[in-house]
């Protein structure tokens, strides 16, 4: 497999103590990888180091097997899409798009053709003569994406590009980006703090926290098998319960689960709401009472008060909650539970 971008032992510390330590990451050609984490986890630091806007303290960055550390941003084979679009306000859309191509000394006819093509790709044909101020946020961001695409970068960097857009537009832009990626086969590094966004567009997700990598895996794997408590907390909804290991089984009151990680002593147990099973009072399980039922479209969220653990949330098919009412006694069981060392 071709490695397009390789980051090796990247470290960058700011005076404030924030930054990233010992980040290593390989990105394959044509892959869309997402750096995901809460704000201040260092994901943007990694991205800006790749783009050349930050100089790492140590480590190595290779693009197509060539070190780019000594190359200034204007010479790097990367292109970046910024959070605030960063279009040039005094230039028309055409000039914004042509600026980089002119620097590359492209012929006028070729340039016109490329710009027409890319505007077609982002579905904004005919907007060449407009100024950025006359476009909506979503349109501006599309132009910013187009500007980066035109440069045919070896790696396309996207720094929370859709976070300033409203929810509906954000969904559309994600789909479009995915489409563009499949059409162009570009290698992309995408930074976001939105786990839903990361799950929906990525080939692989890099979960970051406090300047280091918690897990690198496919969205599916991250969702099903989060490696750390942090990854489990950060991605998707999760219930957390206290349990204990005894006789190589994870025990929560009267329920027992396998212990594949060979943990000992107290453990934190993470359970996805869709893995919570609600049964009648006679079955085995944790006893609780239904607190609230919320219909969320095709499914319902049922919260159950289970003492001494607190509220457990569960997702149930809508037609199965018809017979439930708040205050009803139920037994709670889990089809799947992940155990982590207790903190």
């Amino acid at each position, binding site marked *: 497999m071709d490695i397009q971008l390789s980051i090796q032992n990247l470290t960058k510390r700011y005076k404030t103590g924030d930054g990233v330590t010992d980040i290593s990451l390989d990105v394959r050609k044509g892959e869309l990888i997402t750096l995901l984490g809460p704000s201040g986890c260092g994901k943007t630091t990694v991205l800006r180091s790749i783009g050349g806007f930050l100089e790492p303290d140590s480590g190595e960055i290779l693009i197509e097997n060539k070190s780019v550390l000594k190359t200034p*941003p*204007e010479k790097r084979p990367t*292109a*970046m899409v910024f959070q*605030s679009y*960063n279009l040039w306000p005094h230039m028309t859309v055409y000039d914004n798009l042509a*600026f980089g191509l002119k*620097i590359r000394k492209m012929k006028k006819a070729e340039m016109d053709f490329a710009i027409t093509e890319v505007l077609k790709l982002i579905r904004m044909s005919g907007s060449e003569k407009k100024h950025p101020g006359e476009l909506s946020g979503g349109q501006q961001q599309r132009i910013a994406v187009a*500007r980066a695409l035109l*440069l045919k970068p070896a790696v396309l960097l996207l720094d929370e590009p859709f976070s300033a857009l409203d929810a509906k537009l954000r969904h559309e832009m994600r789909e479009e980006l995915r489409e563009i990626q499949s059409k162009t086969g570009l290698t992309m590094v995408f930074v976001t703090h939105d786990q839903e966004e990361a799950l929906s567009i990525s080939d692989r997700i890099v979960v970051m926290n406090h300047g280091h990598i918690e897990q690198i895996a496919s969205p599916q794997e991250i969702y099903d098998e989060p490696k750390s408590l942090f990854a489990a907390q950060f991605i998707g909804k999760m219930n957390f319960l206290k349990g204990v290991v005894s006789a190589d089984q994870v025990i929560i009151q009267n329920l027992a689960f396998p212990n594949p990680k060979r943990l000992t002593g107290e453990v934190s147990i993470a359970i996805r709401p869709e893995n919570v099973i609600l049964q009648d009072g006679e079955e085995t399980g944790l006893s609780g009472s239904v607190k609230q039922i919320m219909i969320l479209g095709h499914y319902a969220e049922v919260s159950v008060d289970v003492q001494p653990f607190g509220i457990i949330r569960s997702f149930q098919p809508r037609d199965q909650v018809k017979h439930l009412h708040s205050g009803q006694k139920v037994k709670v069981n889990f089809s799947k539970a992940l155990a982590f060392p207790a903190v």
Partner: protein
Amino acid sequence: MSKQSKMGVLGLLLVLPSFLVLFVIVILPVALSFKESLTNDSGGYDLSNYIYLFTDKLMRSNIIFTLTVTIISVGLVLAVSYALAVYMRFNDSAIVRWIQKMYMIPIFIPGVIATYGLIRMLGNRGWAAQFLYQFGVESMPRFIFDMKGIIIANLWFNIPFTTMLLASALTAVPNSIIESAKDVGAGMWRIFFNLILPLTYKTLLVAATFAFMGIIGSFTAPFLLGPNAPQMLGVSMQQIFGVFQDRQLASALAFFTFFLCSIMGYFYIREMTKEERGKAT
């Protein structure tokens, strides 16, 4: 009275004070001076004063001298201030912080004092000459009572404010759009000519207008350290009015100076409204 016409009267009342002030201290004097300037020696009205202004050898050289000093000074002020402002905007060092603290100082020094200071420094036996003498430089070029002296004084008086204007315009250019330009491969000069200059061009024009108006009508420095002939128009005007007591000719000269400023004003207003229209569409 209907509500609409009441509002109309209120509007007029609100505008009236400022209009009256403008009328009494600008429009009326200009009109009166214009009338005065058209009066000839025999009390009739003709263009004799203006003809004298453009045919008399000394007056003509005064006008050319004033325009030369003004244009060179404005050019130098803009060049120095812009360089200073750009340097302060894109660097962060001890020197920058030092310049930031110091460059406004000339604004707080009274003009007369600064001018005498310049005479003491650059004069024939001034301390600059004495200092250079220690290093074997025996003759200094002539600064005082010369065009160079006035230009140096103009730099002193105009650089601080111009730099302040340009610095604030440059601060308004966000780092992010410079970053995106670097990202597409633009080098330093391309970023300067394609982004920074066009984005600060309007303020540059404002600064040029202010400097032009200030310098063409300046009096203190040209009076104290300018040559006896040719003179800047301000000094010449004072002489014609105060020494020769030729009020008609002084008025003609004043009106002509006002006319030069209004040409600059015309270009300024034209550029500003063009920008507004561009935004509106």
